[in-house]
C-alpha cells in the first residue's frame, strides 16, 4: 500500500516547487518580452541643441554646447543667425491651435474642395488660401490622437512612447528639447491663452497666461470666449514674440454632436472671425515691424464622424497646419501632405533657432520658397545634420563613409542606405557650391540636390518614426507563447495537485468521497467568472468599469455559498445535528452576511470607473460633510481594525500571556498611528513637519521590526501542541507524530501579524477617506477565513483561495482604484520620506495601490493553517515535505494560475487591439495594472511560501531535537 502511494505521489514537494518556480520564470521572461515589444523604448538625446547644430555631425562640439548655455539670450540669437546663414523669415509667431479641427474642413480631401457648409463657414480663410497668402498642409498626426502627446510632438518634433506617461508620473512638465524652450533661450517673451495643458507642459515659461480647462466638455461657448477676450489687448501690445491661442470649443462641439453637428458651422465661423481679426491686425502693423508676424493655424488632431478621437484612423490623424503671412507663398494651390512632427523643424528654421534634438520631422520646403537657392539648400542641410545625429544614436556604429555605397545601394533596406543617400546629397551639394559660376540656367543641379536631400530626409524620418511606433510582432508573439507555456504549466500543476489531493481524500476520508469528487455549483461558477473576466477584456467599456464585474462576481459567489450553507441545513431538523453544529452554521451564515454587506459598502464607497464617476458616493458625501467626519471615521476604523485583530487572536486559544505579548507588540505602533491621525487633524494641507515625518519613520520601523520579530520568533516559541486541542485529541501521544498544531498555530500567528501590520500601515498611508474601507476589507477577509475554516469540509480548498483572491480584487476597486492612471495616489507616496527618492516612493505607491490584493494574499497564511493541517494529520505516512506541500499547494498555485490566465488573456487582447481606438487611453493603462497585479501576486505568494517553509524547517528541527531527547530518555 505504502509503495503504491509513493508511486502515486510522484509530485513531491521539491518537484512541485521547482516546476512552479520554472513556470513563473518563464512567465516573467514572456512578460518582459511582451512589454519590450509593446512599449518600445527609443533612445532619446538629452539636453538641448545649441550652437553645435550648425556644424556637421562629425564636428567635435562639446565646448560649443557649454558655450551655448553660458551666452546671454541676445548674443545667442545673433550668433545663431550668423552661423545658420539664413535670415529668419519672421520675427513674431502667433500659434493658433484649434483643438480637433480636421484639415479636411479647410483644405478638402483628395484634391476636392471642402464641403460647401464648411467652405461657407470660413470665408476669410478660404480667401486667404485662394490669394496665396496662406499655405495649408494635411499634417498627419501620430496616434494617440489626444491633445497632450500631440502638443509635445508639435513642439519637439518627436513621437513619444506610451511609457513616457508612466515614467514621469510626478511631473507633467515636458523636459525634452523643444521649441518653446529654444525660444525662451533666445530671450523670447511668450503669452499663452487657452488650454491649460500648455501650462502643465511648460510651467513658468510664459510671461502671461490665461488657462482654460477642458474639463467641462458640454461648454462650447465660454471656453473660447475666455481666449478671445484677451485678443484685443494682446494684438495691440508689442512686447511678446510668441502668442499661443488654444481654442477648445471645436473639439467640444465634436464630442457633443460629431462632425456634422449644428454647432459646427457657427464654431468654424467664430474661428474664421478670429483668423480675420489676427490677420488684419498683422497687416496693419506690417509697416512698423521689420520682417513681420507669422500666423500659424494648426490643429492637434482630427475627429471621427462621431466626433471622437484618440485612434489612428484617417479622420482622426488628419490635422491641419496652415501658415498665414502677409506675403504670398508660391504654389499654394496643390494639396500638400506632411507630418505633424514636421512643424517643429520648420518653425525652428523659420525663426532661426536650432532644431530640437529628438526631432524626426523634415522641413516643409514650400514655406521657404521666398529664400535664395543656397539658403534653401542650407536649410535642408541643417535638417539633415540634425537627423543624422539622431540616427547615429540609434545606430552607434554608423559612421557614414566607411563602406562603398555602390554595393549597398542594391540591398534596399537598412541604415546603410540612409547613409548613402546622405552622402549622395552632400556630394551634390558640394559640387553645386563649387561650380557657383557654372550653374546651369534651368537649375537642374539645384533641383537634383534638393531631391537628394529630400530623399534622405524622407526615408530617415520614416525609418526613425517606425522605430518609435512599430511593434515588432515577433517579439510580442514569442512573449505570448512563453506566457501561454507558463499558464499551461501552472494549470497542469494545479490539475495534478488536485488529482492527488482528491485521491488522498478519497482514500482517507472515505465517507465523504462523493462530496469531494462532485463538481459543485460554486466551483462551476468560479470557472464561469474566469471566462466572463476573459470575455470582458475585449471591451473597452468593460475595462473602464471593471469594478462592477469584480463586485458582482464576488457577491454572486458568496450568495451561492450562502445558498450552499442553507442547503446543508436540511439536516437541521434531524437528530444528528448537535446544538454546537447548529451554532456553527449560524456562524457561517453571519460570516457570509458580513462579507456581503461590507462588500456592498465598499462598492458604494467610491463610484469608480470612468463613465459614472460623477455619480454620488459615500466618499463624496463625506468630503462634503467635512474633515471632522472623516477624522472620526478614521479613528473608528483604527479601533475597528484593532478589535478585529484582537478577536481573531483570541479565537485561536493560545495561552493568555502569549496573546497579551502579541497584542502589546502591536499596541505601540497602533497608538502612534492614532496620535498621528489626531495631530494631522489641523494641518491637512500644510507641509509635513519634520516631527511628523520622524514619527512616521518610527512607525515604519516599529511595524517592520515587530513583523520580522514575530516571523522569526513564533516558530521557535510556539508550543508543539495547542493546549486547547491537547485534551480533546486522543492520538497525540504517538511519538512520531508531527507537531501539526504548533505548525498550524504559528502560521496563524504569523499570518495574523502580517495582516495586522499591513492594515495599520494602510491606515497610515491611505487617504483619510480610505481608512474605513481598509477596515471593512479586513473584516471581509477575516469573515471569509472564518467561513471556510473550522471543519467546514464541504468546500474544496481551491475554492477558498479563489474566493479570497476575488475579495482582494473587488476590494482593490473598493479602495477607489480604477484602470486609469489618474487614480494612483501620488501624494501618499511621499508620506514619511525626508528626501526625494523615486524607488522608495515607488514602493510606497505600490503598497498603497495594491493594498487589497496583497492583504488577501497574506491572509492565506492564516486561512491555510487551521483545517488543512488537520487534514494531513489523518494520513499516516506524512513527513514535513508532504505537510508543506499540502499546506502551500493551493495558496500558491491558485493565485498564480488565476493571474497567469488573466495576464495571458489580456496580453492576447492587447495584441488583437493594438490598432484599436482606445489602445493608449484604455487598454495600455490597464495593461500596466495587470502587470503590477502580477508583481503583487509574485510578492504575496513568495512571502507566503517562504514564511511557511521557514516555519516548517524550524519545526522539523525542533521535533528532531525533541525526538532525540525522548529517545535518549527511553534508552536510559
Amino acid at each position, binding site marked *: 500500500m505504502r509503495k503504491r502511494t509513493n508511486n502515486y505521489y510522484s509530485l513531491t514537494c521539491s518537484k512541485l516547487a521547482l516546476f512552479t518556480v520554472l513556470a513563473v520564470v518563464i512567465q516573467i521572461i514572456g512578460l518582459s518580452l511582451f512589454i519590450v515589444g509593446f512599449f518600445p523604448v527609443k533612445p532619446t538625446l538629452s539636453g538641448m541643441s545649441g550652437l553645435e547644430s550648425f556644424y556637421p555631425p562629425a564636428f567635435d562640439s562639446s565646448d560649443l554646447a557649454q558655450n551655448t548655455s553660458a551666452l546671454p539670450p541676445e548674443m545667442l540669437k545673433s550668433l545663431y543667425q550668423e552661423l545658420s546663414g539664413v535670415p529668419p523669415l519672421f520675427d513674431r509667431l502667433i500659434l493658433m491651435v484649434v483643438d480637433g479641427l480636421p484639415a479636411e474642413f479647410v483644405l478638402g480631401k483628395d484634391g476636392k474642395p471642402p464641403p460647401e457648409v464648411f467652405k461657407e463657414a470660413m470665408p476669410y480663410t478660404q480667401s486667404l488660401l485662394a490669394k496665396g497668402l496662406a499655405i495649408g498642409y494635411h499634417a498627419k498626426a501620430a496616434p494617440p490622437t489626444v491633445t497632450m502627446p500631440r502638443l509635445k510632438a508639435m513642439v519637439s518634433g518627436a513621437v513619444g512612447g506610451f511609457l513616457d506617461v508612466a515614467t514621469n508620473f510626478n511631473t507633467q512638465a515636458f523636459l525634452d528639447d523643444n521649441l518653446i524652450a529654444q525660444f525662451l533661450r533666445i530671450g523670447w517673451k511668450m503669452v499663452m491663452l487657452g488650454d491649460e495643458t500648455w501650462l502643465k507642459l511648460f510651467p513658468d515659461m510664459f510671461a502671461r497666461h490665461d488657462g482654460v480647462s477642458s474639463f467641462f466638455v458640454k461648454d462650447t461657448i465660454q471656453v473660447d470666449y475666455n481666449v478671445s477676450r484677451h485678443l484685443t489687448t494682446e494684438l495691440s501690445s508689442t512686447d511678446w514674440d510668441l502668442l499661443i491661442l488654444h481654442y477648445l470649443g471645436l473639439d467640444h462641439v465634436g464630442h457633443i454632436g460629431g462632425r456634422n453637428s449644428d454647432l459646427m458651422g457657427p464654431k468654424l465661423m467664430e474661428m474664421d472671425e478670429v483668423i480675420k481679426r489676427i490677420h488684419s491686425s498683422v497687416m496693419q502693423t506690417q509697416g512698423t515691424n521689420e520682417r513681420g508676424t507669422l500666423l500659424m493655424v494648426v490643429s492637434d488632431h482630427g475627429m471621427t464622424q462621431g466626433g471622437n478621437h484618440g485612434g489612428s484612423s484617417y479622420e482622426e490623424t488628419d490635422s491641419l497646419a496652415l501658415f498665414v503671412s502677409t506675403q504670398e507663398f508660391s504654389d499654394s494651390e496643390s494639396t500638400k501632405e506632411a507630418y505633424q512632427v514636421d512643424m517643429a523643424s520648420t518653425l525652428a528654421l523659420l525663426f532661426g533657432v536650432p532644431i530640437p534634438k529628438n526631432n524626426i520631422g523634415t522641413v516643409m520646403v514650400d514655406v521657404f520658397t521666398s529664400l535664395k537657392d543656397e539658403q534653401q539648400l542650407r536649410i535642408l542641410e541643417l535638417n539633415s545634420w540634425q537627423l543624422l545625429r539622431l540616427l547615429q544614436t540609434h545606430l552607434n556604429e554608423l559612421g557614414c563613409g566607411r563602406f562603398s555605397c555602390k554595393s549597398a545601394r542594391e540591398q534596399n533596406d537598412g541604415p546603410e542606405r540612409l547613409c548613402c543617400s546622405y552622402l549622395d546629397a552632400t556630394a551634390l551639394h558640394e559640387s553645386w557650391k563649387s561650380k557657383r559660376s557654372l550653374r546651369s540656367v534651368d537649375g537642374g543641379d539645384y533641383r537634383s540636390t534638393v531631391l537628394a536631400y529630400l530623399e534622405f530626409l524622407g526615408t530617415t524620418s520614416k525609418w526613425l518614426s517606425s522605430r518609435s511606433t512599430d511593434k515588432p510582432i515577433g517579439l510580442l508573439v514569442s512573449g505570448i507563447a512563453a506566457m501561454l507555456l507558463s499558464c499551461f504549466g501552472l494549470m497542469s500543476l494545479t490539475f495534478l495537485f488536485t488529482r492527488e489531493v482528491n485521491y488522498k481524500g478519497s482514500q482517507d476520508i*472515505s*465517507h*465523504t468521497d*462523493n*462530496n469531494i469528487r462532485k463538481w459543485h455549483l460554486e466551483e462551476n461558477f468560479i470557472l464561469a467568472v474566469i471566462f466572463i473576466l476573459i470575455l470582458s477584456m475585449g*471591451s473597452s*467599456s*468593460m475595462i*473602464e*468599469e471593471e469594478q*462592477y464585474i469584480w*463586485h*458582482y462576481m464576488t*457577491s*454572486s459567489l458568496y*450568495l451561492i455559498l450562502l*445558498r450552499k450553507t*442553507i*442547503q446543508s*441545513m*436540511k*439536516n437541521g*431538523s*434531524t*437528530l*444528528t445535528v448537535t446544538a454546537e453544529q447548529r451554532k456553527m452554521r449560524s456562524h457561517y451564515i453571519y460570516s457570509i452576511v458580513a462579507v*456581503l*454587506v461590507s*462588500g*456592498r459598502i465598499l*462598492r*458604494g464607497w467610491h463610484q469608480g*470607473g*470612468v*463613465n*459614472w464617476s460623477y455619480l*454620488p458616493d459615500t466618499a463624496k458625501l463625506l468630503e462634503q460633510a467635512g474633515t471632522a467626519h472623516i477624522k472620526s471615521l478614521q479613528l473608528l476604523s483604527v479601533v475597528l481594525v484593532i478589535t478585529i485583530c484582537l478577536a481573531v487572536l483570541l479565537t485561536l486559544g493560545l495561552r493568555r500571556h502569549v496573546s497579551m505579548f502579541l497584542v502589546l507588540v502591536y499596541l505601540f505602533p497602533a497608538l502612534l498611528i492614532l496620535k498621528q491621525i489626531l495631530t494631522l487633524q489641523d494641518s491637512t494641507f500644510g507641509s509635513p513637519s519634520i516631527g511628523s515625518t520622524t514619527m512616521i519613520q518610527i512607525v515604519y520601523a516599529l511595524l517592520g521590526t515587530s513583523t520580522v520579530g514575530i516571523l522569526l520568533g513564533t516558530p521557535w516559541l510556539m508550543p508543539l501542541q495547542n493546549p486547547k486541542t491537547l485534551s480533546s485529541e486522543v492520538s497525540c501521544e504517538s511519538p512520531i507524530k508531527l507537531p501539526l498544531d504548533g505548525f498550524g498555530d504559528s502560521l496563524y500567528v504569523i499570518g495574523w501579524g502580517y495582516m495586522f501590520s499591513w492594515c495599520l500601515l494602510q491606515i497610515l498611508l491611505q487617504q483619510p477617506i480610505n481608512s474605513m474601507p481598509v477596515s471593512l476589507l479586513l473584516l471581509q477577509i477575516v469573515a471569509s477565513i472564518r467561513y471556510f475554516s473550522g471543519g467546514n469540509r464541504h468546500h474544496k480548498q481551491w475554492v477558498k483561495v479563489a474566493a479570497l483572491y476575488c475579495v482582494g480584487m473587488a476590494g482593490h476597486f473598493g479602495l477607489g482604484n480604477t484602470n486609469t492612471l489618474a487614480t494612483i495616489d501620488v501624494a501618499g507616496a511621499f508620506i514619511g520620506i525626508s528626501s526625494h527618492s523615486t524607488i522608495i516612493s515607488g514602493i510606497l505607491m505600490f503598497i498603497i495601490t495594491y493594498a487589497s490584493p496583497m492583504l488577501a494574499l497574506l491572509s492565506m497564511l492564516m486561512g491555510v493553517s487551521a483545517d488543512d493541517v488537520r487534514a494531513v494529520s489523518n494520513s499516516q505516512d506524512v513527513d514535513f515535505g508532504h505537510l508543506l506541500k499540502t499546506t502551500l499547494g493551493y495558496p500558491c498555485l491558485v493565485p498564480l494560475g488565476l493571474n497567469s490566465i488573466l495576464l495571458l488573456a489580456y496580453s492576447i487582447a492587447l495584441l488583437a487591439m493594438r490598432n484599436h481606438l482606445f489602445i493608449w487611453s484604455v487598454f495600455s493603462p490597464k495593461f500596466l495594472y495587470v502587470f503590477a497585479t502580477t508583481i503583487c501576486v509574485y510578492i504575496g505568494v513568495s512571502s507566503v511560501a517562504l514564511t511557511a517553509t521557514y516555519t516548517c524547517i524550524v519545526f522539523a528541527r525542533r521535533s528532531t531535537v525533541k525526538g532525540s531527547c525522548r529517545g535518549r530518555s527511553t534508552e536510559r
Partner: protein
Amino acid sequence: MSQVHRQAGTSHKFWSSSSPSSPVLLQPMHQPRKKAPESTNAAAPFASSLKLLLLHLICALGLASAFWVAFNYYSVTLIQNSARTLLVVWAIEASVVILVYSLLRRNPDQCSVIPVFCHWQRLSYCVIFKFPCDNCLFIFFFCLLFQYVKAIVRGLLGLLAGAFVNALGAIVLGAPVGIQHFTKTIHWSLLMSVFTFVPAASVFGSSWTDWHRIFAQTKPLGSTDFMICFPAHSAVIGAWFGAWPMPLDWERPWQEWPICVTYGAIFGYLLGLVVSFGFVIYHNRRQHGKGD
C-alpha cells in the same frame, strides 16, 4: 403497505446521495424521510397536460395583459416610468399568480366529505358562522373556500417576505440605494417576489422541507414543484444576466436600474414557464409509458 415500502426503497437511492458511512447514524435519519416522498407523491400527482398548459398560459398571459393594461389604461411604459409600470405589472401578475397557485395548494388536512363531516361537527365553526351543522356538503365547500382563502393570504404574506429578500439580494449585488431609486427597488422586488416566492408561499405555506427542497436543493418532484421551481430560478438567473448591460456606456435609456433587470427577469420567467411545461409533459409521458 407494501407500496409504501417500495416507495421508500426507491426513494432511498434518491435521498442518500450523501449518506454517512456509519449505519448507526443512518438509522434515525431514515425515519422522517420515509414519509416525505410518500406525502409528496400522494399530494402532487402529475396533473393532466391540458390543465397544466392552461395554468402556464394563464401565468404568461397575466404578465402580457399586465403590460397591456399598463400601456393602454395608465399609458406608462417601463422605460419612461418604471416605478408605476412595475406597480401595475406586479399587482396584476400577483393576483393572477396567487389565484392560480392557490388552486394547487398543498394542505396537510385535505377536505373530504366523510372526515370533514366527522371532524367538523365537533368543532365550533357551525356555531360561529351559524351554519346548519348537518349540511356536510356545505361544510366541505366551506372548508375548501377557507383553505383557498388561507392559501391566498399565505401568498400575500409571501409576497411581502419575498420582496424583502429580493430587495436585499439586489442591493447586495449592487443595486443603487439612493432615495430616488427607493420606489423602483420596492416595486421591482415585489415583481421578483411574485415570480419567485409567491407561488411557493401559496402552495407550501411555511413548510421548511418543501421550501428547502425547491430553493436550496433544486430537486423538484411532481408537476407543482416544476411549476414553482423552474420559473422562479430562471427569473432570478434572467435578472442576474439582465444586470450585465447596466455599467456599459451605451447611453440607452433602458440601461437604468431596474429596467434591463426587469426585462431579464421577465424573459427568464417566461422561459422557465416553457421549460417547466416541457418537463411536466416529458414526465407525464414517461409515467404513462411506465404505467403501460
